[in-house]
């Protein structure tokens, strides 16, 4: 393979991995309860954003769900836990922090959002780091591209 071809391949690989980082579609095997239940109070967070042990800890304490009672019947709870665990990444940088673990505290999340000033997380338009759609206007469609960022002061940085 020529050097030109090799560098083209390298560029394509880099581009495709960059594209993956801002594409987090809902896996095709999601049960209908995923959107209905996990999406009841917040964006149904992609299973890719926490590790399997993390999702198990989240699903084990739905009665104490980040200050809210999000209890489900056991059948739905198990169905969702299995879906989340099945699609969870095996990467330590995706591990959350706290109990239950927060996906907004993983090494990956912090790195991806390192340019976001601390004050903006508390901005009335954002309210919470878990409010993905406040900035990522197409998050519900699984798209997190820089150019889709809704807040003008952030868009300039991407």
């Amino acid at each position, binding site marked *: 393979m020529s050097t030109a071809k090799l560098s083209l391949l390298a560029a394509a690989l880099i581009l495709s991995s960059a594209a993956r980082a801002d594409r987090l579609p809902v896996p095709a095997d999601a049960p*209908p309860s995923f959107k209905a239940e996990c999406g009841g*109070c917040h964006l149904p967070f992609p299973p890719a954003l926490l590790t399997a042990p993390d999702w198990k800890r989240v699903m084990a304490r739905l009665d104490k769900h*980040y200050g809210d*009672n999000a*209890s489900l019947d056991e059948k739905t709870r198990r169905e969702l836990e299995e879906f989340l665990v099945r699609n969870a990444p095996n990467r330590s940088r995706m591990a959350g922090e706290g109990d239950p673990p927060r996906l907004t505290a993983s090494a990956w999340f912090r790195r991806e959002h390192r340019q976001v000033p601390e004050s903006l997380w508390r901005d009335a338009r954002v*309210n*919470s780091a878990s409010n993905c*759609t406040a900035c990522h206007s197409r998050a519900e469609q699984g798209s997190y591209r820089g150019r889709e960022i809704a807040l003008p002061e952030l868009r300039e940085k991407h």
Partner: protein
Amino acid sequence: MTKAILLALLMAGGAAAAATPREMITTYAAEAARQAPGFQPSARRGAEFYARRFAVSEKMPACVSCHTDSPVQAGRHVVTGKAIKPLAPRAEAARFSDPAKTEKWFRRNCTEVLGRECSAAEKADFVQFLAEGL
């Protein structure tokens, strides 16, 4: 073809039996009347309940914390910031059309905001207010 799709959709909905807000008021009112004979649902009591500050939960002291002062307006989850469609069926037709879903949210939100489950009388009044206004 269309019928087959419709049937499949209905079946995918599972136990989601369709209902109207009026049917739900009737069901809750009948249950309330068994506990207190002569019970009649009241939109005024429902409105008072909707606006009341229960102050059990620090972040969600009242229904209006997330659903705003007017149930025909869109609301916002006070913790997550997620947009909430209006609670009143006259503004959001799908509201109170699925008894299981309605029961789930009453259970969850009453426990959170009141610190206990809501009574059938409270539910009848609440839906009466939301469906028909004052």
